[in-house]
Each structure stands twice: as structure tokens, then as C-alpha cells.
């Protein structure tokens, strides 16, 4: 990101551009998403520098005089005043939990926070979060941290062996399921069990490279029900949304709140529908994660073909 451009954006945020220049800059960030990202980053950094006391006295005065007196900007600064100390403490705690000769920061951070379960690093981060806020968890978590530190070396070794076993079982399970998927796409093998046709679909991130991209579900005439089984990596959402569309875009089925079955990091859910809802056609299953705040994030759109015989 160019320094000159950032300087101009800074002047804009501090109200130091002429009206003509303001409009020129605004037109640019409305039309150019990369420039808009730059503007937001300069703004966040300005707020953060103010909260951390890193502005010069002159910059501080200009910030408090122009930027601060606005409801929305006040809200953002208030957020930063809470957010930044927590982030700083969490970062320090994670640095301290680094083993000797350790891994990259990213690997340390992501491996120290597997899901919601604690390693020493995550416990240390929790302790730091609580200390920073003077919150109600502080005393309890400090005791846990001391106990966890004593047990860390032997528990870590046991954990690693357990993780190796789990990963091996997981890989074996996925290999079996991929093989089952391959069986289903062979036209001569139409899986019908008590009037039910099943199709297992695996998300791209889990899929074996040799698997065909568009699986085929064979529905013999006696079939009463169809089961679509979808497997994906658990993305940590509290619930998921799924919609089934025909090739013409018609919605065949949808559910706003799916809670998949979790097996380690693999999430599985099953949709059971009457067989008469399907025709010889291509179908798409749109899967999205739904956060607690209601934000919907698209995760995948696997397609499959149906042949009725």
C-alpha cells in the first residue's frame, strides 16, 4: 500500500482535504474495492494508534477535534479501547507459550486453540483475557493454569499419540466413505435398501482427488425415499442452512437450522426426501454456515445428477 496514498487518506479522515478533494477520494473508494479496503485499514490503524497513545500530540488534537465527535466514530473508538488490550494480552500469552525451537506464530496460535478446548496456550490466553477485563473467570482460570502447567509435558506427549490414532481412524473412515461414494456413481450399482436410495456427497476440501466431480444418484422405480448425506469439514458454526435446487433454479427443499452430527472435524447431515420429488436432472445443494449473529456464510454448492429407472 503506497505511503502517499495512505497520507492522503489520513488527511481525509482528519478533515483536512478540500471539498473537491474529498469528493474525488470518496468517488474513488466507492468505485474501487481495493482502495476502500485501504481506507478502512488506515482508519482502523488511526483509531488503534489513538487508543494505544501512539499519535503525536498534534495528531491527537486533530483526531479529537475532527474524527472523534461523531456517534459512529465514538462507537468505533470505544470498541477499540476494549478490543485492543484484550488482543495485546492474548498475543503476549501466546508468545510466552511458545515451545523451545518452536513453530511459526501461525501454527502455534492455531494449534493452541483447537476448537474450544484448551491447551496451555489457550488457557493462558483465557487467563489474560480475564485479567485484562478483571472478569469473573480470573481466579478459577488461574488455578487451572497452574495445574495445567504442571501436567503439560506428560499430557502433551499422550495427546500427540492420541491425535495420531484419531487421525489414522479418521483417514480410514474417509477412505471407506470415498469408496462408498465411488460405488454409488457406478451405474450398475444402484444402492436401494428397503425403498431408500442413498447418495453420499463429500465437500471439496475432504474429497479424494480421484473422485468424479458430479456424482450420480440412481433412483429405481420402487424407491420411496431418497437420503442425501453430506460430509464437510466442521467450520465451527452453531448451525447451518441448506437449500436444494433443481437445474432450473427451483428450490426443492430447504432448512434454516441444521445441526450436523460431528465426528472429530467432520460434520455430517442427512436429508431425507420423497423419491417423487426428483426427476432426471441435475441438482445443487447450497450449504451455508449461520453464525450466532445471524450472518450467513456460503460454504459449498455440491451438485449431483439423478437418473430414474
Amino acid at each position, binding site marked *: *500500500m503506497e505511503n502517499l496514498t495512505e497520507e492522503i487518506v489520513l488527511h481525509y479522515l482528519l478533515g483536512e482535504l478540500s471539498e473537491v478533494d474529498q*469528493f474525488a477520494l*470518496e*468517488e474513488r*473508494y*466507492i*468505485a474501487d*474495492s*481495493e482502495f*476502500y*479496503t485501504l*481506507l*478502512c485499514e488506515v482508519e*482502523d*490503524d488511526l483509531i*488503534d*494508534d489513538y487508543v*494505544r497513545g*501512539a499519535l503525536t500530540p498534534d495528531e491527537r488534537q486533530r483526531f479529537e477535534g475532527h474524527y*472523534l*465527535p*461523531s*456517534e*459512529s*466514530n*465514538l*462507537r*468505533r*473508538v470505544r*470498541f477499540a*479501547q*476494549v*478490543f485492543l488490550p*484484550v*488482543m*495485546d494480552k*492474548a*498475543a503476549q500469552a*501466546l508468545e510466552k507459550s511458545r515451545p523451545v525451537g518452536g513453530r*511459526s506464530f*501461525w501454527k502455534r*496460535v*492455531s494449534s493452541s486453540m*483447537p*476448537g*474450544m478446548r484448551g491447551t496451555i496456550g489457550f488457557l493462558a490466553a483465557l487467563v489474560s*483475557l*480475564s485479567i*485484562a*477485563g*478483571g*472478569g469473573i473467570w480470573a481466579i478459577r482460570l488461574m488455578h487451572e493454569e497452574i495445574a495445567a502447567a504442571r501436567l503439560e509435558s506428560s499430557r502433551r506427549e499422550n495427546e500427540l499419540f492420541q491425535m495420531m490414532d484419531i487421525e489414522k481412524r479418521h483417514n480410514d473412515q474417509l477412505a471407506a466413505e470415498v469408496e462408498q461414494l465411488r460405488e454409488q456413481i457406478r451405474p450398475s450399482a444402484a444402492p436401494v435398501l428397503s425403498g431408500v436410495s442413498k447418495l453420499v456427497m463429500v465437500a471439496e476440501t475432504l474429497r479424494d482427488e480421484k473422485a468424479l466431480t458430479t456424482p450420480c444418484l440412481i433412483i429405481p422405480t420402487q424407491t420411496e425415499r431418497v437420503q442425501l448425506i453430506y460430509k464437510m469439514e466442521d*467450520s*465451527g*458454526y*452453531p448451525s447451518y442452512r441448506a437449500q436444494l435446487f433443481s437445474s432450473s433454479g427451483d428450490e426443492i427443499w430447504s432448512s434454516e437450522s441444521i445441526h450436523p452430527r460431528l465426528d472429530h472435524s467432520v460434520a455430517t447431515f442427512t436429508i431425507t426426501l420423497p423419491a417423487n420429488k426428483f426427476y432426471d436432472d441435475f441438482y445443487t445443494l447450497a450449504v451455508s454456515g449461520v*453464525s*450466532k*449473529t445471524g*450472518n450467513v456464510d456460503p460454504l459449498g454448492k455440491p451438485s449431483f445428477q439423478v437418473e430414474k429407472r
Partner: protein
Amino acid sequence: MGRSLTGDSLKKLLDCFDTDHDRAGEKYEELRRALIRFYHGRSIFFAEECADEVLDRVSRRLQEGVEIKNIYSYCFVVARLILFEKRKSPDNRKVPLEESALSTIINPDDDSAERERMLQCLDRCLQQLPPESRALIIEYYQDYKRDRIDRRKAMAKRLGLRRDALANRAQRLREKLEQCILDCLKK
């Protein structure tokens, strides 16, 4: 998306952004965010409603058969018109912030009860994020000045992202946390 947009008018508007429907939707949302930012920056109340008004008016022009060659320039022209209308409106006369609101920012220890509530909400909101997102946001917002620039460059390289793509991801996470805290405080 825009409240008064019908299916057909929305489709016409989205077609101006991209032929691919999904990409068009993303660009629509990016534009809407930028318009909201524009109105916030100009101290206009109800910035979201103003942004929606821009998109409604542009959509109506498309329905009337107006040919728009550059949708972004056109939206900006309409945005400026609405800005001038709002400035003249008595409803948008700038009301000075209360001294107490400003002083709690400048002297944060003056309002420890509110701060404590925000911290509890932040703790809850952080735990709702996937671990990778939590890790990203912790690392992204460290350091000052040159160290911060270098750290972010290194992060982008390590994650295989363009610099602006990383920035975008971090900003969206930060906005998500901010909104989550606001929602939590209302409860």
C-alpha cells in the same frame, strides 16, 4: 438488499455489476458498505437508509430505461445528490455530542461499569469465532507503525493471500466483533 427493490429491478441492477450472479451480489454489498461509510464520514444520520435510497433510485432509473455505462460513477452522483438533500433537511442538523460521551473516550476509566460489560461481551463474541479467525485477528492487530506493516506483509505471504485480501478478512472479522458486542449490550 434494498428494501423497495423488486425481483426484476434487483436483477437489472445486479447485471450492471457482473454477469455472474454471485459475484454481482458481492459487489452490490461492497458498494453498499462503501456508501454507508460515505454518509458516516459526512456525519449524515441514518447512513444505511441513505445508502439504500441511492440504490433504490439507481434501480428506478434502470427500470425507466436509462442506460448506465458506469454503475459506480452513477451511484456516486446520486449519493452526492442525496447528501445535499440531507444537509438541507432540518432532521439532519448536526447536534453536538454530549461532553460526557466524549470524556468517557478521552478518560476511559471514568466508565468502568460499561467497560466491564463490553469486556464480557467481547469474551463471548470471541469464543463464537472459529479458532483460525480468532488467531488471525489476534495477530493482525498487534504492533504499531513499521512493525505492524512488516507483520501484516509476512502474514499475507504465509497465508498465501494478497495483502488487500488479508486486510479485507481482518476488517470483516473486526466489524463482526463490533456488531456482536453491540447486539450483546442490547440484551
